């Protein structure tokens, strides 16, 4: 069994979420288990009623970056949510919401998109990660 890849998603802008989705899909393609832990604004972006919204871009994108992102999207780039759905179809991808962030945002699991498999605390995340690498985005 390959070592796991463990992504902590904190940022809720579309560019960072897309980068995370691509990292997830690539690892899943290689058969690596991927654990995704959603905190703060990343978790907010996974709300069922908001996941398909425009979540903006990181500040460094600026107007020029916005133009590049819009052009790729117009050319047919899949959304980060769609890329994550494809990654989950490959198997081995588990997406968990941070319970503290759930409390912070006043959310229940029913408020989240079905991409999210469950709610857990940070200790469970570390235990699932084992000795695999942890990446914070």
């Amino acid at each position, binding site marked *: 069994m390959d070592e796991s890849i463990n992504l902590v998603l904190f940022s809720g802008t579309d560019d960072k979420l897309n980068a995370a989705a*691509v990292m997830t899909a690539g690892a899943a*393609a*290689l058969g690596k288990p991927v654990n995704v832990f959603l905190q703060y604004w990343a978790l907010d972006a996974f709300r069922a009623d908001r996941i398909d919204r425009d979540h903006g871009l990181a500040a460094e994108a600026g107007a020029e970056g916005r133009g590049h992102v819009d052009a790729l999207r117009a050319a047919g780039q899949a959304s980060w949510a769609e890329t994550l759905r494809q990654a989950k179809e490959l198997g081995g991808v588990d997406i968990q919401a941070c319970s503290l962030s759930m409390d912070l945002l006043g959310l229940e699991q029913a408020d989240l998109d079905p991409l999210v498999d469950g709610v857990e605390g940070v200790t469970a995340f570390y235990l699932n990660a084992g000795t695999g690498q942890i990446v914070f985005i």
Partner: protein
Amino acid sequence: MTETSATPAITRTIDARGSFCPGPLMELIRAIREAQVGDVLSVYSSDKGSKVDIPKWIEKAGHRLISVETRDGYDEILVEKMR
């Protein structure tokens, strides 16, 4: 052009042109899962990363890369499902 072996019969063609990284690989994996051992799949991809990534994935996954040909604005990658 060098003549090597005859091009094997293609079982299925996956046209992933216009799909961005890692879309073509995602489509190939789905098709390989649905295929039978010995099937030959052809992937069309216009994504530059996939030209590098797909052959590496094929090797790692234990299938056989038959060829990578650059056509007019896209690449055609042929792979045989081995297991």
